[in-house]
């Protein structure tokens, strides 16, 4: 009994260590976002300070940003957050609409080259994005998709679609074929079977997969950097805060905190499904 208590204490200590290692950068950033510029570079680091909302005001242009060597910066951080929301949610929706039927087909039908096709789809995740992006840049400018939400949603499919297809394939495989057969015998036609039986059974898994893929889209950097100018996602907007010669760290920290809020909100909303969706499939 005693040795078990000791083991559990040690385990708890280990968990605490891991939590601290994982949480420290986040806590540090949150702290920095409430510090004044002078406190940021202080050595040894300051843990007790008078919190200020100044950085957030600068971020949303409620206060003037510091005058730089290049003139006064206007940040308008609200815009990239909205852009990221539109692009990421749009990308996930398009992926779900296109990917779930594809995943279903891969799960339920036998056809020649099926596994090759599935692998080909996944291989989009292998290619270094930067390699693809240079020709993409020219192509997007030529067809007028450069700096458009539509273009970004489309190109984000490289990130989101393969995952949705592969995850929904495995979730469909978890639904016993008998369910669909039973529905067919009950007199349901294909569309009805899909909408009333398959999709509701896929839902928990699909919500989890969508959240996961949303995070991938939200954190993508390279695509937005090259293919947008004004409608930049939040990741690229953060980079622009790192202006040369200016101490913008507190404002960048505030921007990082803001950029975390949307994913955190979504995860809290879908947490129940996230657990169910990623641990075991859609059923049983």
């Amino acid at each position, binding site marked *: 009994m005693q040795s078990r208590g000791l083991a559990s204490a040690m385990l708890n200590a280990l968990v605490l260590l891991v939590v601290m290692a994982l949480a420290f950068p986040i806590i540090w950033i949150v702290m920095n976002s409430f510090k004044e510029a002078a406190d940021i570079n202080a050595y040894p680091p300051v843990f007790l300070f008078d919190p200020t909302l100044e950085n957030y005001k600068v971020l949303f242009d409620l206060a003037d940003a510091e005058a730089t060597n290049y003139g006064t910066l206007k940040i308008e951080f609200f815009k990239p957050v909205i852009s990221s929301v539109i692009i990421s949610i749009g990308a996930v929706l398009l992926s779900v609409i296109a990917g779930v039927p594809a995943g279903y087909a891969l799960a339920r039908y036998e056809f020649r080259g099926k596994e090759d096709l599935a692998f080909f789809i996944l291989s989009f995740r292998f290619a270094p994005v930067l390699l693809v992006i240079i020709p993409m840049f020219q192509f997007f400018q030529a067809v007028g998709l450069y700096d458009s939400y539509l273009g970004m949603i489309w190109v984000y499919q490289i990130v989101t679609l393969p995952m949705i297809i592969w995850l929904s394939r495995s979730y469909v495989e978890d639904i*016993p074929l*008998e*369910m669909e*057969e*039973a*529905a*067919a*015998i*009950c*007199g*349901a*036609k294909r569309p*009805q079977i899909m909408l*009333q*039986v398959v999709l*509701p*059974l896929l839902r928990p898994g699909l919500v989890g997969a969508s959240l996961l893929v949303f995070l991938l889209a939200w954190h993508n950097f390279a695509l937005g950097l090259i293919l947008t100018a004004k409608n930049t996602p939040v990741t690229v907007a953060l980079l622009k805060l790192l202006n040369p010669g200016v101490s913008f760290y507190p404002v960048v920290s505030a921007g990082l905190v803001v950029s975390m809020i949307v994913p955190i909100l979504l995860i809290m909303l879908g947490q129940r499904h996230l657990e169910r969706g990623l641990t075991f499939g859609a*059923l049983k």
Partner: protein
Amino acid sequence: MAEVSTSKLVKTYGAVTALHGIDLDIKDREFIVFVGPSGSGKSTLLRSIAGLEPIASGSVRIAGQDVTDVDPADRDLSMVFQNYALFPHMSCRGNLEFPLKSEGVAKADIDSRVEIASKLLHIEQLLDRKPSELSGGQRQRVAIGRAIVKEPKVFLFDEPLSNLDAKLRIRMRVEITKLHRQLKNTIIYVTHDQVEAMTMADRIVVLRDGRIEQVGTPHELYFNPANQFVATFIGAPQMNLVPCRSVGAAGDQVTTIQVGDGAPTPLPIESAGQRESLTLGFRPEHVLFQDPECTAIRFELKSDVVEHLGAVTNIYGQIPVENGEEVDVTASSHSDVTLRDGTTLSTWVAAENCHLFRSDGTSLTRNVIAPEWN
């Protein structure tokens, strides 16, 4: 009227042929059971009739209509699956309503039909629960309920009781039989359990390796099996098989056989060729422990294991055959046989209870009038 028939139905999986040209006629309101060991094609045949399996050639007719190329949804049948296949995201009521909503039945009609079905199956209290909150037997009832609300011409059951425990299986067996009497639909029922087949069926179809071995009433299959396979498949404990040879015939209605060095015994079975190697079959329940004073074959049974089941005693042992060899036999007795393991006792089998099989497994015709059942 809902006859079901298949004609030259062939089903293949790649290079493997699962059904070799099945010809079968099922009558209206008949309770027919497909029985056979696993891999015999019984479920495949059922699923082909349901339209769930595309068939290679042949045709399926339901109520006189060729439905070979008709969608399962339009064949006017219901099916109960082995794993129930209830929709887990719907309540039991939702499950029962599903086939009616699919067919666009009016709301008031749906309610009354769901009520009738749930009363019939005693599941009124379960209607608002999800399938995951039900026991196996309750799920089975809901699955049957979902099948009957549709009021189909034909019911298909695919091993519906195999996931239930032994006690519940017997109860549901009786209930399904009762249900058939009430609803008077055509029922096609698949099982690997010959007891289910014998107790429920009007007629049994015995399948093996994708071919029909015999179609007949339980009574016919028991008394006049077409071949050795059917003879051993139907009946439990299974029929004993003992090698023997024919040593003479008196007319073409009698075959005299000899087992090992035993006395030649005339059997009322169509005559086989002289000195032909045959297989003698007799059921454990026909082994007698006293001389029956009629024509009978006598064996010296060396008992191994004696099982007292209360109503029945099963004796497992060996009897000598040719060249000093022995074969395993089973004897059942309803009278209380007091016997220790390892003793040898005289047993008899009346000539009229004997079966003979040729070396290819086919039966020689018995000239015995089967006693009436009822």
